[in-house]
């Protein structure tokens, strides 16, 4: 696949825009988290600065930037500064592989004395082959920043938090992997775009050589993998180190866990990493189990026909389709992010032994069972 200068420039710009989108979502999520928690606990939350307290985000950012630069006297300076930078990277890298919408077609045009195009712009950082493997590979590196922060701070509480975080993430990665295996068996592909395409239309599948159709349900993954969905969701909460799995930063016992010694913008970078993780796992849940950017009961053909009435044929049509799908993806994403926040302010924290028991003695066997049953059913359906 050869790229000319224009396409390369657009792709580079796209990477910047997607990274910027992820970073910009974080203050909004912090606002949603604070207002949402206040709503759940019958408080007001930040409502003084600007309309609905929205300018509080700006005030917070100014505060974070102006805070004192602090390094613990006996800390490891290099690791201490490296940890927050690395904390942002797994989320930012994984978000690149997520398809947000259908590609935009651009017909050939004249610009600066030569003809360019035609182009097919994907609303996705990079269409990486085997997207799932890439996303999980990059996300599995998220443990290092926490370990580095814990060690670099030279603080008992930080180290305890970091060790808890890494043990927890490794334990839950297994069950998560098994849930993903179920998804891969169902779709038979590693490509995220192909997975979304397969979830078009009403629910239909082959069983014992006959085709079964449920016209009142969309063809979404959750109806094929309900147990897998539950396992995946719980594991993604555990991987993001949020309540009910926030043992690494349990403030009652560990002050603030691995980021005890961090303040100002460095701490904000840890937050960006955590919210980036939330965005990535919500997107992956949507793609695996909720049809990605697709709209239920409305096929792409119908949508295109509907939009032709407004914008006509050609490039404008593909742009409008893409925008509608992007909106659909964002609505689903916001719903799942809200569920993340809702769960955080509704459930109490686990005890550490309960956490490990849940991971190894409950989730792992159920994950294995899910894989086995899925294999059996797929074999029956194809046989």
């Amino acid at each position: 696949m050869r790229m000319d200068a224009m396409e390369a420039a657009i792709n580079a710009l796209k990477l910047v825009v997607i990274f910027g989108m992820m970073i910009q979502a974080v203050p909004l999520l912090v606002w949603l988290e604070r207002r949402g928690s206040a709503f759940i606990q019958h408080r007001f939350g930040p409502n003084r600065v600007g309309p609905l307290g929205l300018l509080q985000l700006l005030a917070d950012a100014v505060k974070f930037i102006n805070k004192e630069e602090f390094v613990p006297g006996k800390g490891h300076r290099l690791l201490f500064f490296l940890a927050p930078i690395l904390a942002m990277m797994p989320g930012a890298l994984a978000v690149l592989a997520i398809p947000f919408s259908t590609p935009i077609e651009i017909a050939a045009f004249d610009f600066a004395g030569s003809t360019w195009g035609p182009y097919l712009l994907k609303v996705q950082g990079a269409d990486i082959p085997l997207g799932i493997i890439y996303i999980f590979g990059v996300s599995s590196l998220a443990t290092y920043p926490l370990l580095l922060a814990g060690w670099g701070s030279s603080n008992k509480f930080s180290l305890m938090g970091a060790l808890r975080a890494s043990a927890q993430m490794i334990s839950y990665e297994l069950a998560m992997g098994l849930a993903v295996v179920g998804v891969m068996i169902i779709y038979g592909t590693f490509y995220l775009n192909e997975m979304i395409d397969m979830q078009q239309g009403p629910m239909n599948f082959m069983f014992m050589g006959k085709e079964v159709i449920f016209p009142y349900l969309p063809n979404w993954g959750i109806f094929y993998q309900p147990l897998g969905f539950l396992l995946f969701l719980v594991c993604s909460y555990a991987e993001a180190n949020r309540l009910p799995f926030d043992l690494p930063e349990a403030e009652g016992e560990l002050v603030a866990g691995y980021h005890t010694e961090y303040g100002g913008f460095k701490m904000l970078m840890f937050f960006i990493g955590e919210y980036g993780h939330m965005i990535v796992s919500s997107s992956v849940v949507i793609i695996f189990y909720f049809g990605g950017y697709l709209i239920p009961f409305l096929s792409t053909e119908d949508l295109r026909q509907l939009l032709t009435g407004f914008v006509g044929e050609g490039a404008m049509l593909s742009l409008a389709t893409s925008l509608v799908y992007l909106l659909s993806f964002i609505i689903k994403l916001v719903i799942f992010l809200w569920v993340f926040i809702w769960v955080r302010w509704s459930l109490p924290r686990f005890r550490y032994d309960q956490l490990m028991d849940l991971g190894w003695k409950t989730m792992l066997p159920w994950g294995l069972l899910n894989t086995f049953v899925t294999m059996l059913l797929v074999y029956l359906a194809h046989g």
Partner: protein
Amino acid sequence: MTSTVLFYLLQFLILASALGVVLIPNPIYCALMLAVSMIGISALFFSLEAYFVAGVQLIVYAGAVMVLFVMVIMLFNLKNEVVAFSKGLLSKVLKVSLSVLIFALIASSLSMSFADLNSSQLQPYESAMRSVKELSALLFTKYIFAFEAISILLILVVVGAVSLARAKGGTHASDK
């Protein structure tokens, strides 16, 4: 052109971090260097379009095995043992002979596996999915015995480690 530059940059990164593993005395930095080198190897696989191997390298080695190494080193603060382990003529002889042995093993197995292979036989797969399917078919048919043998070996090692730790009192043993 860019892929060649990328290849040499990654080679440099992998070799430099691998040297760092050997030359840096602090065990924490050693383990982190090893992690960097594994990430570099994964990036190399990625640039050679072996996406599945690259991902597995990241998930298994960099994401799980090395994290456990770093965690254990942090738990046991190994600083004092570095000096004790590295001194003495006997340990030097042992170290050199062991490294020569391992090098010979790797070199001979590499040369043996490349002996009956010429590059005209190597065809790139038309898609990444296809290569994964080929790989799994090979793993579960031709190399099934080696695959299962390795998994049995791993289970043995895990059980052995647990029983050794249990015999010495497990996690509740007092530090003397």
